[in-house]
């Protein structure tokens, strides 16, 4: 494949960022928005073309004669050579998962660009907003097509920075500023683990290259045999630390705290970055390194356990939030945890790593329906000017388009056939059950909770009781409705894509067989969840309040997200800030600097002590001189004698 089109996929958003960033202030809002959207549209077309070429052209670059999909490096430009072996290249790797992401990212990004034309209309800094969106799209695309782990790290940092800029878009609001800061620092902390992981891995394998690492892990890791690092095997450390980076970006426990706060950013940004694309980077990372993870079973188990705990935690918390975007944020955490669990449960002996395929499938469908839900939430917020659903209710009468699309999104995430989420979630459950019944039951429970909390939100917003609206809410303009409708359609049909034909471990084609037992269980659980939500929240009543009162402590704890933020605040402010930084600053001023000043003071004092010898009176000098001369004479005489 020619390198021009892939290069353009990266170059256009970057160019658009530079153009809008440097010249944006001279442009009108409309021009900047249209330029950004057109640029993204072009990228959309080009990346669809690339992905379709990859999947359907039958080009021997991309598919072997036996029908195995290959990893193909379109271009790879050396960027920075640390040593002859360790070279960071900037390149473009095309394989099933990156081709899939080439569909997901431009699609969602384009929808968000289009949607923002209406949503952000008239906001101060509109041009800046589009510049940042372009920067983000560039970084995210660069991340997924990375040919080596360091390129991924580079773009990993760049998406972090663009996420920081976009969360803090309303920079005059202190809450947005602190949320953006928190997001950056928490992910930075995770990236520290990622970086150290990369360093360990690259030291032993002497390569950054994904293909070298993943095509034959056994050979690549021959040098690590028996090598230990701080008590553990090197490879285990490396893979767990690299996964830490993924935990940060993908908001896994205990590094999840930034994601709910990140909802301070504009809603379309939440849809793009904090629901569909950037937060799945962690999943993508594990998938990208999957053969390496397979070589270290402990690290996969670690992924599974972290994912499973996070999934349950986030689902419980989501049931008690009153900010609609926070509910969606926790639901995102929970769904990403599903993908993690699925990867953690993938083993070659169980349906040839079904979990890998299921995880990518869920990533794909989740991106679509979660973006839909967020954009729908944006439409709601736009209509009633509040994030709290206590200010909403009965909106199905006023906003039919939003109502239907949101409902589709909820059905999809709840896992009701034939909507997209059902198919992918079912595959995940099959994969997990085949690995371990315990975790299978666990995840089924979480799936039920998912249905419950999503429909809780749905009923509370669109049914329940109608509060007094200052002005009548209504559906949004076409730029906002069209993306909703498109995404809703995709959410309906995406599950029917024969995903196993395209994205599987090692590229073999895989026919999805429905496991109707698991599917039946998950449907039943989801329906039960929806029914409970309906009973509680369809019409106004005091059953929810009674339920919350009956176990008040649990409700309060969940409402406060089990006090994770408070714990972090305690650690950062009380321990690190007051316990480390301040003492160090004090130590520096008083002890270190005090010692230096002490030298000066001692010198100074000593000088003052002997200065009186220099009285300035000539007679004193003469006297001292005489005494000295006499002494000298005496000594001389003594010596001569």
């Amino acid at each position: 494949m020619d390198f021009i089109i892939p290069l353009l996929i990266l170059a256009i958003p970057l160019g658009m960022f530079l153009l809008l960033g440097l010249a944006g202030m001279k442009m009108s809002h409309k021009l900047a928005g249209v330029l950004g959207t057109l640029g993204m549209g072009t990228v959309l077309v080009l990346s669809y073309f690339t992905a379709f070429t990859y999947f359907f052209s039958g080009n021997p670059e991309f598919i072997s004669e036996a029908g195995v999909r290959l990893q193909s490096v379109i271009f790879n430009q050396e960027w920075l050579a640390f040593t002859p072996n360790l070279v960071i290249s900037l390149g473009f790797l095309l394989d099933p998962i990156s081709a899939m992401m080439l569909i997901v990212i431009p699609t969602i990004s384009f929808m968000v660009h289009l949607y923002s034309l209406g949503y952000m209309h008239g906001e101060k800094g509109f041009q800046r907003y589009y510049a940042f969106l372009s920067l983000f799209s560039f970084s995210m695309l660069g991340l997924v097509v990375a040919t080596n782990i360091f390129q991924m790290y580079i773009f990993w940092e760049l998406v972090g920075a663009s996420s920081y800029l976009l969360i803090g878009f309303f920079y005059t609001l202190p809450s947005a500023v602190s949320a953006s800061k928190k997001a950056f620092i928490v992910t930075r902390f995770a990236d520290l683990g990622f970086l150290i992981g990369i360093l360990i891995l690259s030291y032993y394998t002497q390569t950054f290259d994904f293909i070298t690492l993943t095509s034959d892990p056994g050979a690549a890791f021959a040098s690590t045999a028996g090598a230990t690092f701080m008590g553990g095997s090197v490879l285990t450390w490396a893979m767990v630390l690299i996964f830490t980076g993924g935990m940060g970006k993908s908001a896994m426990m205990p590094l999840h705290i930034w994601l709910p706060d990140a909802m301070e950013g504009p809603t379309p940004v939440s849809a793009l970055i904090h629901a569909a694309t950037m937060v799945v980077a962690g999943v993508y990372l594990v998938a990208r390194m999957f053969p390496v993870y397979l070589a270290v079973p402990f690290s996969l188990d670690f992924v599974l356990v972290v994912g499973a705990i996070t999934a349950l935690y986030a689902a419980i918390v989501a049931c008690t939030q009153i900010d609609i975007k926070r509910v969606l944020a926790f639901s995102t955490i929970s769904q990403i945890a599903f993908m993690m669990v699925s990867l953690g449960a993938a083993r070659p002996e169980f349906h040839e790593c079904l979990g890998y395929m299921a995880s990518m499938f869920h990533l794909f469908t989740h991106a679509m329906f979660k973006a839909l839900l967020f954009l729908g939430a944006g439409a709601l917020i736009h209509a009633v000017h509040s994030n709290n659903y206590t200010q909403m209710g009965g909106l199905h009468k006023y906003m039919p388009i939003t109502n239907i699309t949101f409902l589709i999104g909820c059905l999809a995430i709840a896992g009701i056939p034939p909507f997209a989420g059902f198919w992918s979630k079912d595959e995940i459950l099959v994969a997990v059950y085949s690995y371990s019944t315990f975790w299978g039951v666990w995840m089924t429970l979480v799936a039920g909770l998912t249905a419950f909390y999503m429909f809780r939100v749905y009923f509370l917003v669109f049914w329940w009781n109608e509060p007094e609206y200052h002005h009548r809410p209504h559906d949004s303009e076409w730029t906002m409705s069209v993306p909703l409708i498109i995404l809703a359609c995709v959410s309906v049909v995406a599950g029917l894509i024969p995903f196993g034909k395209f994205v599987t471990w090692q590229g073999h084609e895989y026919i999805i067989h429905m496991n109707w037992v698991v599917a039946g269980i998950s449907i039943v659980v989801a329906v039960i969840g929806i029914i409970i939500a309906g009973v509680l929240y369809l019409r106004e009543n005091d059953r929810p309040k009674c339920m919350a009162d009956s176990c008040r402590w649990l409700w309060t704890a969940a409402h406060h997200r089990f006090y994770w933020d408070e714990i972090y605040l305690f650690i950062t402010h009380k321990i690190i800030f007051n316990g480390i930084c301040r003492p160090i600053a004090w130590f520096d001023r008083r002890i270190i600097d005090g010692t230096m000043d002490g030298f000066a003071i001692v010198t100074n004092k000593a000088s003052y002590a002997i200065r009186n010898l220099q009285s300035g009176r000539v007679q004193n000098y003469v006297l001292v001189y005489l005494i000295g001369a006499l002494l000298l004479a005496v000594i001389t005489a003594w010596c001569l004698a």
Partner: protein
Amino acid sequence: MFSNILIYFVVIPLLMLGGLALCRNIKQIRAVAVAGSLALLALSVYLLVDYLGLRAAGATEPMLYTDSWSWFPTLGINLAVGVDGISIAMLILSAVILLTGSFASWKINPCPKDFFLWLVLLSTGVFGFFISIDLFTMFMFYEVALIPMYLLIGVWGSGNKNYSAMKLTLMLMGGSAFLMLGLIGIYYQGGHTWNLLQIAQSNSIAPDWQRFLFPMTFVGFGVLGAMFPFHTWSPDGHASAPTAVSMLHAGVLMKLGGYGCFRVAIYTMPQAAEELSWIFLILTGISVVYGAFSACVQTDLKYINAYSSVSHCGLVLFAILMLNTTAMTGAIMQMLSHGLMTALFFALIGFIYGRTHTRDITKMGGLMQIMPYLSVCYVIAGMASLGLPGLSGFVAEMTIFVGSFEHADTFHRFFTILACCSIVITAVYILRVVGKLLFGPVQDDHHRSLTDAEWWERTSTITLIVCVAAIGCFPNFFESLIRYTFSPEIFAVIGMN
């Protein structure tokens, strides 16, 4: 003598001094300062191109353009010059910062003429230092670069300037005392020659003497490189210094320390460096984290930046002590990167201080709404400092970390990981400042009437940002320029394993 291109790096500043002495008004002064520093920049870029050409044509000596003129034959003192990729990188850095510093002091008050005279004298020392390969002339230029600092801070500074100027000068002089001792020892032990290349190639200093002389020279230069615990001149000095002086000091003078540590201490005494590096690794490793933690609680912008410099310069020395090609290349990259971005920081702080008349971050806020241009530049500088890919900090730090990780023993691993932690702490203090200073609501209503950057301020900041981005986007060019000196072949020439 004048057939050697390098000598013009000293001649041009001297001509500038003469020109400045004849100036009658501020316009002429500015013209001389800008023209001179542009000439220096052009000269250094020309040198770079010519150097690359020579290397491409197959020149394999450690240093090119070497030349030597006898100066004081009785003691064997020569004016010996020569450069390699590192020196050229440093010369370009100095020229860029002198240029931007001249723009940043466009409206210096009072006595602009004297200010520029001292500033140019200081840069004479800097340029002379980087082209010298004779230890004695090197030391002389080093002192020429240090002394004007006293007057520049004492006269044109702000705040507690007498104290700071005195402290800075005395501490650096204290370092010079160690250094002098070390250099004289090297002269006598290294075969009665001051010539660096000869000393390095003969590698004749006895190991026992190396063990004594290495710490002397390393500490001597390390004081200027803000090595813990000799860094305390840096916060006070920078806080009191006028903008251009802070820029030159943090941007270039602190690099003299790192450059000297490598060029003199390690270059001439590789065995002792290997043997004793662990002591200084501990100290510099502490510097890295300690500076970053200290920066987290400061409220004065310049203090924050000074402590951040302690952290970043600590990383330079840390990497130099790793004694392998990759880490040492990273160290020089970090010197370039830190020089540029810290100059950018100090320029911006100076511009902001010139408007708000305070540097206390608790008394400012929401500057993004008032002076968007300066604020955006500040964010870019911050991003460079916390290591955003595409800007210079990232490539330098990553090279250092990858290089440091080549040591597989627990001691080096521990300190490398400790140093890696600084990327998180850096993010904390940078974002803290950005959040408090630039974002949020406007803190002080008097600030609302302030204006954004003037053209000369824009010129200064844009030049620096372009350089920072150039290093960040095309690191391989700079790294290959530097790496030649650290290649195993040259190591072999200078007696390193």
